[in-house]
């Protein structure tokens, strides 16, 4: 176990607890009163962002916490969505029944595919999960009785309780999705902070040492993969609640890629960040994209560039970039010690566990 790292985690979480809890409370209250603040379309987008954000949470658990970058989290998402569609068409329209069913289906699917995926690491894991995702989408095209084929499947509105009123109003749908997303994200965050989460961090940071210490690493990873599958399954169920439609193209490669990028933008280890990244992507694509119809990909691309260059260090990052630019041009900035570019681009063919900024320690090789 990487004791130093966990000590730091413990310390920093104690240090920031009060401020962070306050910030979290503000955000939650803001999300709850959002229907009073924005127009209907924005509210629909916010719903969409929450569902996409929950998918990203699943991706983040694997990428940031287990060190398995994944491009296949749409697969359990699709399983959850199609299961929900099937239930709805068989008159099981209550969300409180659909959610556990979708979670179970997503988890089962992940448990089976996970056996294969969790052995790989880095780019190989990325491609294996991509294969799982694409094969699932292909199966969705082929298996028409269950999925409706490439034209997709539409469902009538869901209800929260059996026999309750149909979820029809945009506000009601938003609040339902918000509550479910908050509960799932909250449970996820709690689990990740528990001793189990710390074990996972140990696997991510030093797998060999964990193995040597006798930890069943594969079992931890499979469990995590299954858990992430359940989260994604729930996200799929919520997709059916607000869109009432799913097709193979909605569970394809590009959704996977966007979910992974949402996590990278938001910060790979942050649950709240996953939602924020997802929100940024949805609003960029569907809100900014509407300013110039047809050029949403351009806006998304620019968002990604901005995120890469400016978000990690904020304004400090800009200064640092200027400095490294000056170094490259051979100019010495007085009073600043330039960094060695030698360690740059040390390609070892693997995605670092963090995926995001490589810690300073990594420079010491």
């Amino acid at each position, binding site marked *: 176990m990487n004791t130093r790292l966990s000590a730091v985690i413990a310390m920093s979480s104690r240090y920031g607890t009060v401020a962070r809890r306050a910030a979290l409370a503000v955000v939650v209250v803001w999300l709850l009163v959002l229907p009073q603040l924005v127009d209907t379309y924005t509210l629909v987008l916010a719903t969409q962002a929450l569902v996409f954000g929950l998918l990203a949470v699943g991706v983040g658990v694997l*990428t940031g916490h287990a060190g398995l*970058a994944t491009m296949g989290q749409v697969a359990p998402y699709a399983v959850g969505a199609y299961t929900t569609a099937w239930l709805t068409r068989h008159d099981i329209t209550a969300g409180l029944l659909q959610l556990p069913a979708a979670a179970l289906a997503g988890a089962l699917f992940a448990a089976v595919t996970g*056996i*294969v995926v969790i*052995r*790989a690491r*880095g*780019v*190989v894991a990325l*491609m*294996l999960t*991509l*294969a*799982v995702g*694409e*094969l699932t989408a*292909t*199966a969705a*095209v*082929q298996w028409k009785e269950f999925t409706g084929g490439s034209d997709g499947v539409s469902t009538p509105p869901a209800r929260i309780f059996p026999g309750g009123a149909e979820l029809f109003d945009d506000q009601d749908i938003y609040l339902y999705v918000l509550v479910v997303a908050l509960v799932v994200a909250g449970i996820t965050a709690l689990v990740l902070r528990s001793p189990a989460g710390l074990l996972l961090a140990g696997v991510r940071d030093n797998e060999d040492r964990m193995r040597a210490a006798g930890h069943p690493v594969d079992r931890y990873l499979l469990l995590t993969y299954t858990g992430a599958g359940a989260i994604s399954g729930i996200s799929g169920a919520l997709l059916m609640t607000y869109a009432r439609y799913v097709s193979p193209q909605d569970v394809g*490669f590009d959704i996977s*890629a966007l979910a*992974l*990028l949402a996590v*990278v*933008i938001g910060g*790979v280890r942050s649950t709240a960040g996953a939602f924020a990244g997802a929100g940024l992507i949805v609003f960029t694509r569907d809100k900014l994209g509407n300013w110039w119809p047809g*050029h949403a*990909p*351009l806006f998304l*691309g*620019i968002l*990604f*560039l901005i*995120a*890469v*260059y400016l978000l*990690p260090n904020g304004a400090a990052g800009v200064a640092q*970039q200027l400095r*490294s*630019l000056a170094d*490259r041009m051979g100019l010495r900035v007085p009073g600043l010690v330039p960094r060695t*570019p*030698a*360690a*740059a*681009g*040390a*390609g*070892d*063919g*693997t*995605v*670092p566990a*963090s*995926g*995001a*900024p*490589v810690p300073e320690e990594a*420079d010491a090789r």
Partner: protein
Amino acid sequence: MDWLDAHLIPALDGVAYGMLLFVVAAGLTLAFGSGGVLNLAHGTVYAMGAYIAADIGDGSWGMLVLALAVGAAAGATSGGVLAVAVAPVARRGHLDQALLTFGIALVGGDMLVSYFGADQRQVAVPKALEDSVTIAGHQYPTYRLAFIGVAALLAGLGYWLLVRSTAGAAVRATTDDPEMVAALGLSPRVVHTATLVVAGALAGGAGVLGAPIITPSPETADTVMLWSLIIVVVGRLGSVLGALFAAIAVGEVQTLGVVLAPDLAPYLLFGAMGIALLVRSGSGILPEFAARARVLATRARALKGGGA
């Protein structure tokens, strides 16, 4: 003999396809190997080359050569731009680079479609290569046959460059240990930039030559990118020879494979990739499955025996 006759054309076509994909993927694997840059904008460079071919090419040899020069130059330029863009995030890991290069791909794709238009384009081919030739009683497009030759030449040249030349040695040394390359007085960043420039030129040139086979359209970049990625990963990251085998395999899966197993056709590419990765990763997953299956079978037999 009949069987052979029926599958000759798909098999040959698999080679042509594989060679095209190899030329594209070689650039990607080079960039990944030397610089650790998983360049998701690589397919966009191919698409740019293909659009240039459609724009400049008019069916004459001279214009084909001009298109090739322009395509390669444009590709090389974009490789240089990429090197500059990636430099600030070079220390930050592959996911940040993926985010960056994906962003560049999106912006570049939008610019390509805005400039060249969304319509499918006609790619003019010199008259001599336009039709088909008869091979063992079958028709086969002349251009593809010629392409196999050119690509083989390119592959040979690339192999020589990377494996035999000193510049190639510098690139591979940078893959192995960039710090030690720097200690030799070579700037890894210069090696790295040069590699990206060459990789870009290769992709741009492949776009020009490949345009009659994989025609430019708004989805070309994505398709080519995905295939190249599969090839690079299956062929072991950074290995040129591995990429060649993987490319031919992907080509054959898409041609011979869909004929031999039509029912599985939609699953073939990713299924084959998954299996290849499992076998290759050496994680012992498949042997373990086999062992477990044997244990289960033995137990089942024992149970049956006990019941009887």
